[in-house]
């Protein structure tokens, strides 16, 4: 080798200033600039999509948090409701309130205030507010009182003004009518907590997200409580204790496959196992949570194993070297150091579970649930299913409610991820 190099012709010094050399340098700079531009372009494109999504959602959903209300003078004293304030102090108050004809009272009051068409101005469920008002303050029964109650979808649409004009004659007429009512201060648009406190309803002016939000909260609680500990312990066992043989290989392959199984199949599994075999209640948060936990667990196992694997062996050696037992090495060093990675996996898994619709449809969580669930076994629905149900409704009043529900879902997601990221940063250690 050496002789070959020595015997070759004298070495020509490289001319770094030659034309081709300079061109190559310029081309290299251009390529680097181009590459940077591609990256920037990709970032801007995805940021643009995201901004578009957010702007659309917020602009069409913001209205969902408001309510068009109409002033309804109610003559409780002269009404057909023969109740005395004192009667409502007894134990049978709920029964008495249920028997009273508030619907008729609302209709009579509307006709009295706005004529025959008054019935169309009022939300179908407006009478519920009369009942609630009485329930809150029985002395109303002796007075005449003007209450603000939700207006009908038609009024609500007219409140948008010109943007809804020209579509039909009725609508144009309603816009004119709305302007009159507005001038007389008989209608108002107001931010309403109703959307955040009520549950599903067939009347878009009276729907709320609380039922679905609470259902999601309960479901996610079950999912987290099951998937996180089981996932982490599985990861720990597979990484730290499992002998390397065919069985652990099979388990590993199965878990990796499980993470890729389409979610609807988990729904079928949940239906077959939890409802048909264990007789758990249909449409309940506990079944939803169990099903989603099955789906989330493999993601946590995979992320957890990678996180545990990435703890430097030198740290294990250090702990073992001063006489820490294997469990101490694990709990004092390996788990705290791999926690950020485990949490990242948990965020991904939980976010996916939160947005999951398909498996929950199969276990009956698409039912119409008008009362927020009060426990894990009550009929419940979850945010994405609620969005799916509302987007399917014919009544145009549901459009903005759907967008508003999406905003709530995104905020929930953001809050969940925010907590996880905060935890991750808190435990993040550098070495």
């Amino acid at each position, binding site marked *: 080798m050496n002789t070959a190099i020595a015997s070759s012709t004298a070495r020509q010094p490289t001319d770094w200033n030659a034309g081709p050399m300079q061109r190559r340098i310029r081309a290299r700079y251009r390529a680097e600039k181009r590459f940077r531009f591609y990256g920037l372009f990709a970032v801007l494109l995805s940021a643009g999509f995201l901004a578009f999504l957010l702007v659309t959602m917020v602009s069409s959903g913001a209205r969902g948090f408001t309510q068009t209300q109409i002033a309804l003078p109610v003559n409780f004293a002269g009404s057909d409701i023969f109740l005395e304030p004192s009667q409502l102090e007894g134990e049978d108050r709920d029964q008495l309130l249920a028997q009273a004809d508030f619907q008729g009272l609302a209709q009579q009051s509307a006709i009295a205030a706005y004529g025959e068409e008054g019935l169309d101005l009022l939300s179908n469920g407006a009478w519920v507010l009369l009942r609630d008002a009485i329930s809150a303050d029985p002395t109303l029964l002796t007075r005449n009182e003007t209450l603000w109650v939700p207006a009908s979808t038609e009024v609500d649409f007219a409140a948008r003004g010109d943007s809804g004009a020209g579509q039909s004659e009725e609508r144009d007429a309603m816009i004119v009518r709305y302007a009159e009512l507005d001038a007389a201060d008989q209608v108002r648009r107001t931010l309403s907590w109703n959307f955040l406190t009520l549950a599903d309803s067939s009347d878009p002016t009276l729907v709320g997200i609380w039922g679905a939000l609470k259902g999601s909260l309960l479901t996610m609680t079950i999912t987290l409580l099951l998937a996180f500990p089981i996932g982490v312990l599985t990861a720990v066992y597979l990484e730290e204790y499992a002998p390397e043989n065919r069985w652990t290989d099979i388990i590993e392959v199965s878990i990796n496959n499980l993470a890729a199984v389409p979610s609807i199949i988990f729904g079928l599994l949940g239906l077959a196992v939890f409802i048909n075999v264990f007789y758990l209640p249909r449409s309940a948060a506990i079944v939803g949570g169990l099903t989603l936990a099955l789906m989330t667990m493999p993601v946590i196992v995979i992320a957890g194993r990678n996180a545990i694997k990435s703890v430097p062996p030198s740290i294990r050696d250090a702990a073992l*070297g001063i006489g820490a037992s294997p469990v101490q090495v694990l709990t004092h060093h390996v788990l705290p150091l791999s926690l950020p990675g485990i949490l990242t996996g948990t965020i991904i898994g939980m976010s996916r579970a939160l947005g999951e619709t398909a498996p929950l449809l199969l276990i009956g969580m698409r039912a119409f649930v008008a009362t927020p669930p009060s426990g894990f076994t009550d009929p419940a629905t979850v945010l994405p299913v609620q969005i799916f149900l509302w987007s399917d409704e014919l009544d145009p009043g549901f459009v903005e409610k759907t967008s508003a529900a999406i905003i709530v879902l995104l905020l929930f997601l953001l809050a969940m991820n925010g907590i996880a990221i905060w935890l991750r940063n808190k435990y993040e250690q550098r*070495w």
Partner: protein
Amino acid sequence: MNNVGDMMNDAMDTHAEPIADAPLVAPDTLKMTARNVDVYYGAKQAIDNVSIDIGMENVTAFIGPSGCGKSTFLRCLNRMNDTIPIARVTGQIELDENDIYDPSMDVVQLRARVGMVFQKPNPFPKSIFENVAYGPRIHGLATSKSELDQIVEKSLIRAGLFEEVKDRLNDSGTALSGGQQQRLCIARAIAVDPEVILMDEPCSALDPIATAKIEELINDLRGKYAIVIVTHNMQQAARVSQRTAFFHLGTLVEYGETSDLFTNPSKDRTKDYITGRYG
């Protein structure tokens, strides 16, 4: 290629050669003994029939070219090889005449008695205080906070680190320089009050000044602990140790007083290695 072949043959030749068994270590200072130790990684034999005595009062150096098994053998002395599933150790290793591979031996306690300092400084990503306090804490060596403070301070002083870090005991141990980190690791090993300290090339990742400090520290610690240091730096072995064992291809070729071994090696292979013919 030829050279390696020669060495292989050489190893084969010496396989049956009896190990010179002059009582190098006086019985009253004998701390650890190894007899006929073989180590296998799967089917591969890494250590072949090593017998050695380690005394309390001296620093013992293991030297030899890379891959000769000196680190593997060192890790047998506190059973760190247990963590490698395919490693198998046969033969007998005793600490104070107790077989450390006996089933009744508690490996956690063994590692507290036989501490270890690793090649790369590996402080925990915790504060300096926590690094040193961790060992005493898990072994329950301190009954009160003030006692723990004392142990930490004493250990840091012994490791020659206290003056440099006394104002920032709550800073992260990983923020220290490499040499300081290694002294922190030594302080951490000292804190559990071991009888033997094994050092696996403790200076190979350090600059000469940090190395000098560690060597000085080893000199200071001599006599308080039985120290075994693995090094591939022969000058270091000559500087810090009183006895040297030369390993080659998994066998213990020669073991003797450091001064003798370096000036008057009895085996040709030792001579070749210390004169720089290979390694």
